[in-house]
């Protein structure tokens, strides 16, 4: 009985429209928010670009945590790998074309994803969590010690991206970086939308629900999850490279435990298992951070903690999840 439902799930997935009207609307909303942001905060485009980079990290985390059910507190490792790869390519090898730097970031993120996936997927539950924390500390220590490559605790400087496509210089206002970031986010969003709807994406959801049943159906959970980890690493690598290109400096904090924990907070705040949830959470959290930490940096951590407790107690589905459930209930009532 249950077998047939799982089969239906996989059989009907390709028959469904791959990229429907709802997705186009979502894309339109993203672009609209991006345009609004451009005109509302013309002096704060650097912050908006940082939000986009963080959003890419959170989307990438959503792929493994929301869609595959892997609890990790070390996801910044993939982001930092992308950022350092793009930065090192520019600072040490003179590869200054932004698109080439981006490619380096994607490859490094994917490789880091492969390594992390290989290690983290070996255990479940608490040991899995501990492995992820140990990994992020290991990456952090490594970047700290290899200071001739990474600049250590001083950060990696000397990143000087040339004009995008040879036409658009990265200006002081961050306009080019912002538009570049929005374009990247839109492309990544469309691709991820296709991936999570594909039979492969459905398989990953199935693994989250019940790995034993998926295995008995003849699929290998481990291979599927490792693949998802590599995809997730590539997405995080895009975010890292964008961060390196736009700020022109890479710090050790991009490989920190705090960054990993914050990205998880953003994801949960928005709602796991949904790309819109990841985006919503990032935007809300980053704006909140910008306002509160400007007002009173001391209480920032307390506020994040209280926020987390409140979300877990009162809105376990996150902002987007709760709103979506509310809308669905209203529709049913009518």
């Amino acid at each position, binding site marked *: 009985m249950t077998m047939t439902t799982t089969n239906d799930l996989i059989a009907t997935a390709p028959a469904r429209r791959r990229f429907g009207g709802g997705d186009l609307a979502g894309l339109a909303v993203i672009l609209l928010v991006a345009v609004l942001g451009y005109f509302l905060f013309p002096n704060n485009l650097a912050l908006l670009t940082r939000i986009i980079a963080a959003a890419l990290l959170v989307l990438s985390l959503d792929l493994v945590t929301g869609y595959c059910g892997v*609890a990790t507190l070390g996801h910044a490792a993939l982001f930092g790998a992308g950022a350092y790869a793009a930065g090192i390519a520019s600072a040490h090898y003179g590869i200054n074309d932004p698109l080439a730097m981006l490619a380096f970031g994607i490859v490094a993120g994917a490789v880091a994803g492969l390594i992390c996936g290989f290690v983290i997927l070996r255990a*479940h539950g608490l040991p899995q969590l*501990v492995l992820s924390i*140990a990994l992020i500390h290991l990456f952090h*220590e490594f970047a700290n010690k290899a200071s001739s490559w990474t600049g250590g605790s001083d950060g990696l400087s000397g990143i000087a991206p040339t004009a995008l496509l040879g036409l658009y210089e990265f200006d002081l206002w961050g306009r080019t970086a912002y538009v570049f970031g929005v374009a990247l986010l839109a492309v990544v969003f469309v691709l991820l939308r296709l991936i999570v709807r594909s039979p492969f994406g459905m398989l990953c959801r199935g693994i989250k629900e019940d790995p034993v049943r998926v295995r008995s159906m003849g699929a290998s959970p481990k291979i599927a999850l490792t693949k998802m980890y590599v995809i997730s690493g590539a997405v995080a690598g895009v975010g890292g490279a964008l961060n390196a290109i736009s700020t022109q400096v890479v710090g050790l904090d991009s490989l920190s435990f705090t960054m990993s*924990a914050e990205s998880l907070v953003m994801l949960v705040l928005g709602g796991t298992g949904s790309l819109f949830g990841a985006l919503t959470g990032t935007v809300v959290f980053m704006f909140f951070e910008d306002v509160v930490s400007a007002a009173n940096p001391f209480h920032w*951590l*307390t506020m994040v*903690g209280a926020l987390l*407790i409140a979300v877990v107690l009162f809105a376990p589905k996150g902002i987007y999840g709760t709103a979506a459930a509310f809308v669905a209930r209203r529709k049913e009532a009518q």
Partner: protein
Amino acid sequence: MQTVLSIAIDALAYGMVLFVISIGLSVTMGLMRVVNLAHGAFAMIGGYIASYAARDLGLAYGFAVLLAIFGTIVIAVPIERLLYRRIYGAPELTQVLMTIGITFCIIGIANYVFGPTLKTVPLPSELQGSVDLGFRAIATHRIFAILCGLAVAAGLWYAIEKTAFGVKLRASVDNAAMAAALGVRTEIVYAVSFAVAVGLAAFGGVVGAELLPVEPYYALRYMVTFLVVVSVGGAGSIPGALVACLLLGAIDTTGRYLMPEFGEFFFYLAVIAIICVFPRGLAGRAKG
């Protein structure tokens, strides 16, 4: 030879402090299946209270330790009643988020109340200086820490293996629903073991203040170490935790002595290697 001895003593003392702090975490995790990331925060609270009592109020060391233990329990029990109870049996992600939220709050509050500086717990004159063993002088405080660890291990072993409460505790760890059906009031078992766990954390935080200095980010900095001990030892196992503490203490201390610039690196590498080889911990059982 001298180096080997000092490494051994330091490793033993460090391992024992780790044991005192994390054994409570191990027991509660085995019992309630809660991934409690805030355990280190309770050890930190203990350290702060002891520091305040001994340095600012001028109380004797023994009083300061007692005050730290009871003070921390008084702070922690309402947190357990109000917050932890809601996440028993919840998915791991929920537990992680809740407890990391609690940790962040405690760090923020400690930073606000006590400031970002290091706090010391002044030692009484009997624990300062060193003891001459004939061939080697050893800092008295290290011996004190080792003895405390041994006492806690022996006490816990007795309480769990030989007393009526220990029987109920083991029954609840193995199968909480069945134990409740047989008349064990698991609520009380949970509450008492949580209080004992927090008290031990506070005690370890005070005794280990020389080795793990008390500061606001204590809870985050050592969170990993405590969790590692539990997952390497296997949740709920006292011998497992003891072995894990001594092993990890040895690895960490040796790393710090011989390769100070790469100490942490090898520690985390060893952790990853151990967990990959023993995914359920050294003394872990199949999860029920």
